[in-house]
């Protein structure tokens, strides 16, 4: 393969084994969301919620591993989620699903950039705009222009930093403070964190299964990695990724308890700046800050790369026949434009804590059944299958204005599942009739 071949940008030069596959997926999945949602989960749903968050993340990855094996068997020679959707859907269905993918991609990129913005504002003394500009330029060179090979080079460093931070910092703190004072402090100021019979937490865990699983099912970057991992190792790689990933939010929760014991706090995001203030050793401060930014940068770069690939390979190429050079040109233009948009939007909107948990939960819950149907069925599926995800998501959003979040997510899932089941039953009956005739 030539060095400037566009295929190299999409897939890199080598097939990944389990170890590199896990590293690449961890770099994608330890995101700003993981870091920023951990305190939110801990504060809202207590220790049980924190543990549940980790376990559900692991479960989603393990479940996706089963599907990944099947996808690799049924769709050899493909590279992106768009390639598979093009094979399995009608043109209208394909464009609808691509719209959903592009929208969720932009939302996810925006959340990452916003997360980076919040942390830059909290931690660094430099002007916020300059910090964000540097951060997004770095992401552009890694994910936008660099391609899969560059992403893998950064992934190794990123995962090393993740483990260094989540192992060293909690151990350092608990050795310094001891567990008893932390327990007493939490019992006094935040006793709700220690409640076990927390039904809200169980509902949260139950709902998180839908949201996380839906999220990984339509994650462009995970699909791309699935196609470059050695076929016989795909399932094992996703299983191990899930198990190893689960250890990170667990460690982050234990770390955050250090910050909140014995006092109150302003909001969940201020916990990070307080944590930085609490860390006495300058080496550990540097380690923590580098860990946070490296995680967000690698996740944002992976998302940017996957979205750019989706745009060039599955949108542009549907309209024009592109030469290799043109593909590169559009890649630079698109990823540059996305970075610029993110810079402008995040700069204009003053960074403010977002409701990260389940903000797009309805969409993720609604796509589960249609995507499962697409993966597990044979032949081309009618427009109603992808459209059911749209109906489900809209139904959930309408309902959510009248009731609490969780029920809206369940409703989104139920609507799309019922529609898909109806299509399945209809197809089975008509097929039987044709056979009888």
């Amino acid at each position, binding site marked *: 393969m030539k060095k400037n071949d566009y295929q190299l940008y999409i897939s890199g030069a080598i097939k990944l084994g389990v170890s590199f596959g896990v590293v690449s997926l961890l770099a994608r999945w330890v995101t700003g969301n993981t870091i920023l949602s951990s305190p939110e989960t801990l504060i809202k749903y207590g*220790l049980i919620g924190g543990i549940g968050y980790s376990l559900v993340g692991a479960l989603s990855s393990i479940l996706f591993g089963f599907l990944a094996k099947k996808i690799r068997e049924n769709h050899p020679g493909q590279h992106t989620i768009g390639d598979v959707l093009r094979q399995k859907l009608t043109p209208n269905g394909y464009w609808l699903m691509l719209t959903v993918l592009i929208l969720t991609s932009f939302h996810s990129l925006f959340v990452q950039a916003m997360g980076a913005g919040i942390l830059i504002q909290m931690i660094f003394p430099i002007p916020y705009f300059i910090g964000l500009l540097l951060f997004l330029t770095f992401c552009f060179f890694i994910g936008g222009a660099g391609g899969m090979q560059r992403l893998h080079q950064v992934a190794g460093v990123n995962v090393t930093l993740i483990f260094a931070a*989540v192992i060293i910092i909690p151990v350092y703190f608990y050795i310094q403070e001891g567990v008893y004072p932390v327990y007493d402090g939490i019992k006094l100021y935040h*006793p709700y964190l220690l409640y076990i019979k927390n039904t809200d937490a169980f509902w949260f865990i139950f709902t998180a299964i839908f949201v996380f699983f839906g999220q990984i099912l339509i994650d462009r970057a995970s699909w791309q990695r699935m196609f470059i991992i050695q076929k016989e190792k795909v399932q094992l790689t996703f299983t191990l990724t899930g198990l190893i990933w689960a*250890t*990170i939010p667990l460690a982050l929760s234990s770390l955050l308890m250090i910050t909140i014991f014995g006092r109150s706090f302003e909001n969940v995001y201020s916990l990070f700046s307080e944590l930085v203030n609490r860390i006495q050793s300058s080496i550990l401060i540097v380690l923590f800050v580098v860990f946070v930014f490296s995680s967000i940068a690698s996740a944002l770069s992976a998302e940017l790369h996957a979205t750019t690939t989706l745009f060039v390979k599955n949108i542009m190429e549907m309209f024009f026949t592109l030469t290799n050079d043109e593909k590169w040109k559009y890649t630079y233009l698109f990823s540059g434009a996305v970075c610029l948009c993110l810079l402008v939007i995040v700069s204009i909107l003053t960074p403010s804590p977002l409701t990260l948990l389940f903000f797009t939960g309805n969409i993720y819950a609604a796509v589960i059944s249609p995507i499962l149907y697409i993966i597990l069925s044979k032949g081309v599926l009618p427009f109603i299958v992808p459209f059911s995800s749209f109906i489900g998501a809209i139904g959930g959003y309408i309902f959510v204005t009248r009731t609490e979040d969780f029920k809206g997510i369940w409703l989104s899932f139920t609507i799309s599942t019922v529609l898909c089941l109806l299509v399945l039953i209809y197809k089975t009956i008509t097929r039987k009739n044709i056979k009888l005739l």
Partner: protein
Amino acid sequence: MLTVEAFSLNIMIAALVPLLGAFTLLFLFIFEKRIDLLEKKTREIALERELQTALYNQLNQEIQPHFFFNTLNSILSLARLDRKTELIRSIETLSKLLKFKYQTNNTFITIDEEITYVNYYLEIQKIRFRDRLHYEFSIDPNVNQAITIPFIIQTFIENAFKHSFERYVGEAFLKTTIEKRDKDIHITVWNNAVEGAEELSRERGLGLVNITKRLELLFPDGKTSVQLINSDNGTSVLAIFPFILSSEI
């Protein structure tokens, strides 16, 4: 409410599990390639052992004096009849057949190569059987570069000669079909039922065990099978194995 003991346990687990994750990754980085290499070596050794057995069986079964002397006699008659062109062609084919047989040490070859070899064999059999033998091939052009184990079609065809055409007089029809179905290759070798032939499926079935074993070794993750199907108008052998192009190896 969580007790202090449970809280301590929770903190201990939360602080230690990342260590476990890091060790798992480290272990994979150090040993994954070695484990892969060991698995590959074990498979290769088993495959080579099976190939040796196959080669031994091939030589035993095929270069038997019966086949060899009959072929030589047929070539001799061509010389006596002064049919020089056919004579040269048959000696050349016999030479190529023997060369291929003795030189094949690979654990897999392409279907194209296997067909070339089978054609040499059938050309020689045509000299022996003359107008009695009718054979045809139906090959999906997409499968030419797919890999298979050496001597697979050859063994099926030889079985047809050994258990049917050479034992009983009458017209000999042989049909070989190779097609791609979904993600598999289906190879079918059919021979007509010769009048007076007895049921020999058990004897033939035993000869297919080596093929089944070698297919399983070459395609450890894929679905493979070899079936002997008897019907009123003939006997066919069907082998199924995954479609993998030689360029993908």
